[in-house]
């Protein structure tokens, strides 16, 4: 424990570290041979409790938020303000008949939702949700995150293949193509952060951003490369987790539900859960990398416990996802691929260059202004050029229409 308890922030610190302290206390009061078990349980159980709870909250938040965006009320009948809606949904999913197509590959069909949920939970191991609140301290935490995260592709393809449905197969093919393509810009956009922070451990990346100039924090998002990287990361994350406008694998209006078309009842709920868990995880990673993780946005707000900040930021991210979902139509497969390889990938590389320039330009009053200008130019010019290049060959523009002459 390298946290220094200062007199002034004593109470705040104690509240901040309350879960850590409780954990230590519980482990300390367990008989020696069982300590390893309690230690594991105290890591696993909170994750299994908190994030599915957040999932339940998010489903109702999403439905209400979308509702308000669309000028409706959203669910408001079950419980106060419709807050118990997820309970009703869960009960419904549990009591529904579990249908397996006769021609489906039974074992794989059964395993797919389990695999996807397990991998979705595993990535939380390296996510710092508060000061000293990382489940497993891994030096190569980011690598672990991406390695495990890409295992969901396996589950998706298992689901799509084993269902033996043409729509499932189309959905699975779309999903594989999309996830593999977007993993590249997703990982590349984090490299800029790794270069600057010089570490792969998420908690150290947070600590690198947890200092302040005056009252303003040193978050990476407030630099040109960081801002671009953040946008790239979140776009790729939306694609990676099949969120709108990249929800092609499920593309309801085209291939009905994609790879989950043959799932019903609780298995469907598991897919749903996994999807949201991935969103939380990848948003959490985005927060860790670019938004200062659990650190407070203004220095004097540090009295509020760090884990509250983490979840507050997470909620903001989720709300943004909902907002985007309520606004944008879906891309088409070839456009999606074009976007990944012709825009996202070059931009991620440019962002790396930008980060490198930022890193090696000297500090100082004049230089810091100059550094800002140079790096902004490095990011904006390719952005405009690439965005123009995306419509190469095809003229995509707003059109002006004529009217028939009066006759």
């Amino acid at each position, binding site marked *: 424990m390298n946290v220094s308890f200062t007199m002034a922030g004593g109470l705040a610190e104690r509240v901040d570290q309350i879960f850590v302290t409780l954990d230590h206390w519980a482990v300390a009061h367990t008989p020696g041979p069982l300590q390893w078990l309690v230690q594991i349980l105290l890591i696993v159980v909170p994750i299994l409790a908190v994030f599915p709870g957040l999932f339940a909250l998010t489903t109702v938040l999403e439905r209400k*938020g979308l509702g*308000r*965006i*669309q*000028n*409706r*009320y959203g669910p*408001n009948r079950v419980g106060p303000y419709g807050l118990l809606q997820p309970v009703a949904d869960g009960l419904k999913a549990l009591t529904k008949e579990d249908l397996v197509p006769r021609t489906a590959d039974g074992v794989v069909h059964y395993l797919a939702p389990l695999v996807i949920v397990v991998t979705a939970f595993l990535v939380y191991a390296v996510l710092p949700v508060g000061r000293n609140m990382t489940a497993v301290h891994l030096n190569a935490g980011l690598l672990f995150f991406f390695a495990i995260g890409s295992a969901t592709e396996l589950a998706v393809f298992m689901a799509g293949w084993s269902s033996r449905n043409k729509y499932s197969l189309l959905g699975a093919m779309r999903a594989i193509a999309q996830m593999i393509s977007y993993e590249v810009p997703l990982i590349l956009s984090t490299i800029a952060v790794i270069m600057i922070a010089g570490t792969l451990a998420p908690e150290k990346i947070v600590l690198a951003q947890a200092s302040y100039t005056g009252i303003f924090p040193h978050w990476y998002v407030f630099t040109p490369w960081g801002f671009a990287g953040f946008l790239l990361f979140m776009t790729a994350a939306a694609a990676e987790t099949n969120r709108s406008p990249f929800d092609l694998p499920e593309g309801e209006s085209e291939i009905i539900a994609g790879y989950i078309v043959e799932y019903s009842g609780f298995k469907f709920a598991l897919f749903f859960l996994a999807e949201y868990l991935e969103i939380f995880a990848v948003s959490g990673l985005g927060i860790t990398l670019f938004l200062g993780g659990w650190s407070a946005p203004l220095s004097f707000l540090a009295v509020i416990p760090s884990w509250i900040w983490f979840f507050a930021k997470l909620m903001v991210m989720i709300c943004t996802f909902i*907002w*985007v979902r*309520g*606004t*944008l139509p879906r891309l088409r497969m070839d456009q999606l691929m074009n976007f990944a390889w012709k825009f996202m990938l070059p931009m991620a590389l440019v962002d790396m260059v930008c980060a490198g320039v930022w890193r090696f330009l000297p500090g100082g009053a004049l230089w810091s202004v100059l550094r800002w200008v140079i790096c902004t130019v490095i990011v904006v010019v390719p*952005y*405009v050029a690439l*965005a*123009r290049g*995306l*419509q190469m060959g095809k003229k*995509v523009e707003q059109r002006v229409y004529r009217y028939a002459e009066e006759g």
Partner: protein
Amino acid sequence: MLGEGIVKGLFETARNFLGSYVDKDRLVTVQYPEERHPLPEAARNFPFLLYDGDDPEAGLRCVSCHICEKECPPRCIYIEKSTDKKPDFVGKPQFYPARFDIDVSVCMSCQICVEVCPFDAIRMDKEFELSTDDRFGGLMWTKKELSKPNEYYQKIHPVEAAETDARRAEDVEKAKAKAAAAAAAKAAEVAKAAEAARADDEGAGKEPSKG
């Protein structure tokens, strides 16, 4: 192509999100069982039969003329004519329906029966909360279920009902006047006849005294 259209769209949805909390024009949803839209006067759902007074049997306006049965586009009305007659609102003896059924599972609420009825006997109801836990029963509405008093009509379609009532009152007046005139004429005739009868003892009693 720089994403400004997307940003514009995001602002529009944000405006709508916030607007739905303040602008009644945006949030048009009505929380149905607790609050309800007032139905417009013209609203229609399923037909019902009108009767005057308190007795649905005696006051039923329908004279079993079968016009609505023939004109009904989905043919969901079934009428059986009575064998005897009963007096209608102006006192003229008329047939009445021994049976008047509407199959509401077939009825398409088109109001053609109301339009073609020359006797103001059938009108459209506004009641729409008709669901029951009985899936197959209760879909054939009989005369008993269909008959509703004029007061009910006045309640749900006040303007229309006022017009109809005025017209019918006029008819009654006319009929009364006619009856009075006829009675006067008859009385004169009777007097004349009586005078004549006095001569040869032939009565005019065979003719009905009332028209």
